[in-house]
């Protein structure tokens, strides 16, 4: 991040509006730390990484690897906007993948199999949402239940055995491309655009943010807080289910032990690193996508340049904290 070397102190409260209108480099880097880091990483790779700026690498390696986390993170961002968290996404991916694979292997055909898998994921989301919205259980605990039990359920469906799925139509979800763009990337763009539109231009979008910002006030203002939360958890789980199917299709096998393992942490990190506070009340699909791309590219860059995976992991942890810190400074400076 060469820009930050000339960064002056955070703008004072009085000067903030003017600074923001001008979008000076200093304010910009602070507000959009993750985006700046992404640009810096792209420039670095363009200069120093062989074969980086090829369509094959950008589309089929970088973007296709980042897209699954991005899609799950978009659902996670909706939940986080309501001041919640969804720890169950990885387990839901495993359940959805297993259900889809089982249905396909039992000969239901492609569409019913996908529908069944997404339905299973939706049910998981409704379970989470009901606990949170109707019973007032804390989100971290409510979704911890499926985090723990969900993987066991997925494993029980086939006694933990791997299922090979080589249906070509199904593999399209993981290996195919639309107009030369990998399916995952297309879906990421579609989902991000849909959530962007919903958040920006529909009453539900405003309800979502109001619920997370100040729940008692939102309730008094007539916002259907419970329904909003239920929908947020249902969406998060359904998107996780979709990604679970994509992962099964990509590796042509459903592995309940490993599908989606650790996905909740990657998704939360992607949401947080781009400046969405975990305390709710904000959602920015663009920032989430940037966060997911940045974290993935960071890891790939480090590994491509001979840094071991473990050290890359350490650096990632450090970058997450640094990004949050820089953006929080900016947030406090702006008022």
């Amino acid at each position, binding site marked *: 991040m060469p820009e930050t070397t000339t960064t002056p102190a955070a703008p004072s409260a009085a000067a903030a509006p003017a600074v923001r209108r001008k979008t000076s480099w200093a304010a910009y880097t602070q507000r959009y730390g993750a985006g700046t880091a992404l640009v810096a990483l792209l420039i670095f790779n363009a200069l120093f990484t062989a074969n980086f700026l090829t369509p094959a690498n950008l589309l089929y390696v970088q973007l296709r690897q980042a897209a699954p986390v991005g899609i799950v993170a978009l659902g996670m961002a909706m939940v986080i906007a309501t001041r919640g968290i969804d720890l169950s996404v990885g387990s839901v991916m495993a359940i959805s993948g297993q259900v889809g694979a089982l249905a396909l292997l039992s000969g239901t055909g492609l569409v019913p199999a996908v529908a069944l898998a997404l339905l299973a994921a939706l049910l998981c989301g409704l379970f989470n949402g009901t606990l949170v919205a109707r019973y007032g259980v804390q989100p971290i605990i*409510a979704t911890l*239940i*499926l985090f723990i039990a969900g*993987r066991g359920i997925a494993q029980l469906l086939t006694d933990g055995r791997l299922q090979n799925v080589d249906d070509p139509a199904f593999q399209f979800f993981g290996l195919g491309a639309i107009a030369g763009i990998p399916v995952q990337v297309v879906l990421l763009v579609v989902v991000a655009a849909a959530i962007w539109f919903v958040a920006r231009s529909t009453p539900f979008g405003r309800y979502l943010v109001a619920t997370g910002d100040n729940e008692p006030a939102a309730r008094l203002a007539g916002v259907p807080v419970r329904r909003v939360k239920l929908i947020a958890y249902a969406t998060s789980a359904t998107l996780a289910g979709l990604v679970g199917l994509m992962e099964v299709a990509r590796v042509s096998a459903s592995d309940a032990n490993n599908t989606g393992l650790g996905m909740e942490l990657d998704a939360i990190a992607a949401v947080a690193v781009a400046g969405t506070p975990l305390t709710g009340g904000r959602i920015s699909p663009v920032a989430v996508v940037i966060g997911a791309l940045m974290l993935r590219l960071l890891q790939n860059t480090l590994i491509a340049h001979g840094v071991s995976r473990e050290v890359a992991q350490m650096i990632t942890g450090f970058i997450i904290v640094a990004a949050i810190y820089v953006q929080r400074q900016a947030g406090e400076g702006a008022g």
Partner: protein
Amino acid sequence: MNQLLAFRTRASNVLALQRHGALIALIALLVFGIVRYGDRFAGENLANLLADDAKFALVALGMTFVIMSGGIDLSVGSVALLGGVVAAQASGAGLVPAFGLAVLVGLALGSLNGVLIAKVRLEPFIVTLAALLGVRGLALYLSDKKAVVASGTGSFQDFGRWELLGLPVSAVFMFAAFLIGAAVLRYTAFGRTVLAVGGSEDAARLMGLPVARTKFVVYAMSGALAGLAGAFLAAQTGSVSTDTGIGWELSAIAAVVVGGTLLTGGVGSVMSTLVGVVLLQLIFNLIVFENSMGAIEISSFWESVIRGGFLLLVVLLQVKLSRRRASGGTAPA
């Protein structure tokens, strides 16, 4: 101070039923086990269960204080892995240096969490999530991604064989740690401050309580206990595999919640966490026994389903109890 005392007393009244709920379940399962399986269950099996539990319990003890202060520590599993790795690597130097090093490493990382949360005032969830990732990376780097085998010649591995008062020494250690923890919570200003900070950080600050210092200490303590737990594991099993500690943070949170401590902070009990840890472990122990009797055929995959189902049960019970409290008007909702 009067207000604080009243606050604590009311909180412990409120908690009594929840705490005893877990305790009653624990006693019921123990009686069931003893009646059904007799000596096979009661003697050595239970001692081993407690020895095994000690490391999880230490992590959960630290987590209890963190949660009571209104925070969360997701990094404990990774810190335990790192503690285990350094303890195993230093095991040739003997028991005390190896354990001391593990505790120091844990304390250092916990302090780092504490500084970022208490002084820089970043969100606990994010800070400890980043630590979860980063510390695991560090541990894998130190261990070269291989299981670290502890030295067999020094006194390090004797720890797993020692007994005190007829119990494995790790179990004795666990009970001692929880008694100290309970005493700290009940009888010291620090303990009361933890609850006050968790209840309302702003109110605690206005009362002039050392909020930042208290938060720092709970994370430092959680890190040190996690490091110690890793050393326990290394000494008991003689080696530390790279997947050590994965999911420990969530098991610890589950045990704390099952014990009846509310995640919102401000209320809680140390001994009930111990009940929660032992209870969750005992369930699996009983499943193993049932399987061995041939009475039921339950694959290991059921373990997590049952654990999750149990957590659901406890959570719904808590909801019911807290609603009754709220409608009775004896405590704030």
